[in-house]
């Protein structure tokens, strides 16, 4: 490569690295603030070091809000949502690919149309429905509406379609039931699709805000995302404690992200779930 080309690449590298470092500042700032004593923050608000690093803010953040409960609620809700979404959506996709049932094309069109339904806009009628069903305030109110996810069906659909048909026919000739083919032939081959749908559903479910805010009204039954929002604009002098809460709220998903970076990026690229 010529001299100008090398220079260009070096310039690009510097520019994008600088930008990436700027992107990390909010994380670092929250972390630094959470480790400094409040009086020091008040005296020198923008100083990025401390003479007295300590974890006191974490203790008081943990004690002053039911963070433990929020973790438990978020974890149960997100996990159940993931399990149900993966099972229900992959079963539907399996039926659409391998089973010729009457009305199949109508079902397919219905799910395709579902890709265009903006569910976030429907919280009000959804709320009325769940009140009529007497499910408000329960985990089920949060879990049930997010299971039937058209995008997930299409992710599984494209994966299952790529499985060679002779494989299925051979299993059929061996006398395997459809249920067994689904469980023992198709699902093991769908592992990348399962992990993509599972990870993205987990993140979406953990970060959901408006719907859990509406249906989980008890402080103790809220999720991390909803619970933390009540701290915004609160006690203006407890900087360290507020930032400690934010760090604690970020931690679980950031850990998931650091462990599964590549899979998450691939999942987003393959599905475009948003």
């Amino acid at each position, binding site marked *: 490569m010529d001299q100008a080309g090398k220079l260009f690449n070096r310039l690009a590298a510097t520019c994008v690295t600088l930008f990436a470092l700027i992107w990390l500042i909010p994380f670092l700032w929250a972390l630094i603030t959470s480790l400094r004593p409040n009086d020091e923050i008040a005296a020198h608000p923008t100083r990025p070091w401390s003479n007295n690093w300590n974890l006191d803010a974490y203790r008081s953040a943990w004690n002053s809000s039911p963070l433990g409960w929020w973790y438990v609620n978020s974890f149960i809700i997100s996990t159940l949502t993931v399990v149900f979404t993966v*099972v229900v959506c992959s079963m539907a996709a399996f039926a659409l690919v391998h089973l010729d049932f009457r009305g199949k094309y109508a079902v397919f069109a219905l799910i395709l149309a579902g890709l265009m339904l*903006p569910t976030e806009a429907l919280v009000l009628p959804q709320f*009325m429905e769940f009140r009529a069903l007497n499910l408000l305030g329960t985990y089920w109110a949060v879990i049930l509406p997010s299971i039937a996810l058209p995008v997930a069906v299409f992710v599984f659909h494209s994966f299952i379609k790529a499985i060679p048909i002779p494989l299925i026919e051979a299993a059929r000739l061996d006398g395997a039931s459809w249920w067994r083919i689904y469980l023992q032939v198709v699902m093991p081959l769908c592992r990348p699709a399962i992990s993509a749908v599972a990870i993205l559903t987990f993140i979406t479910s953990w970060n959901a805000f*408006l719907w859990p805010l509406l249906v989980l009204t008890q402080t103790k039954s809220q999720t991390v995302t909803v619970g933390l929002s009540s701290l915004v604009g609160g006690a203006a002098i407890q900087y360290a404690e507020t930032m400690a809460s934010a760090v604690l709220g970020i931690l679980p998903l950031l850990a998931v992200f650091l462990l599964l970076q590549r899979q998450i990026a691939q999942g987003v690229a393959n599905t475009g779930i948003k």
Partner: protein
Amino acid sequence: MTATAIPTSATGVDVQVRPETARGAARGHNRAGWLFATPFLVLYVAFLIGPVLIGLVISLFNTTTVKSGVGSWVGLSNYAEVLSQKDFWASMWHSVLFTLLTTPLLVLLPLLFAILASRMARKQWFFRLAFFAPYVVPSSAVCLIFAFMYTPETGLITNAFSWVGLTAPDFFGSTSGAWFAVVLLTLWWTFGFNFILYTAAIQEMSEEIYEAAAIDGAGPWQQIRMITIPLLRPTMGLVLMLQVLASLKVFDQIYILLAGGPAYSTRPVIQYIYDTGFTAYRGGYAAAATMVYFVILVVISAVWFLARRRNNPAKV
């Protein structure tokens, strides 16, 4: 695969012993197909189609959110009121304004940085970490951190303005400052999603095109302009549409950071529905607003969807 104890089906058709007849197979397909699709269809109809129909019905009644029951029939008067209500159109405009402010930034900046990052052979994991990590952070945690950085006098961002010789706007007290605050936060939070979409598309391009271009004497700038950007055009279309739809549905960050303020001057349409339906308890009226908003979103995605299918019929 060995045929071990499989529970025989309820109709007594035993596939292990008797070879399937054509009609038997068709019946088996039909039954199994519906059995596999039923869990999805039940949930789908109950919780996606159901709310649309319920919204449609409630919007024709003067339902209140505090009492059960639909109330009494009012015909189309809820719609007439929504469409003539200034507050509704103001909130509609705020959602559109947010979309106009965020979409160009979130379509073009990630494109630029994905291209620049792709010029580097190593350190891809670092960019993925820095840009995409914010995307997995809950909206409320993002707002906690940014609210702290936007604090008047003492906040980091407020002070950053004075370091470069500018005066920081009033992030919570003025409308323009509030928009600035929420757009910057959104840029930081969701930048990574589009960055990943672009990066994946760039990585799918074959090395050979670039090698051939380099042999022909094309410099990096020419390679980007003549190869990368034209090949990225379909991805740009996808990112643009996903971004417009996501931005039109904005709620979390404006509600948590600003509560739609100052004086409702940033309140998006979802918060308008929330306020009228859950604070003023006017369920029927809020349902009418929901339906108007819903139809607008569906029309936008349907137009895009059809356009995409016509350009690329193979893709779902």
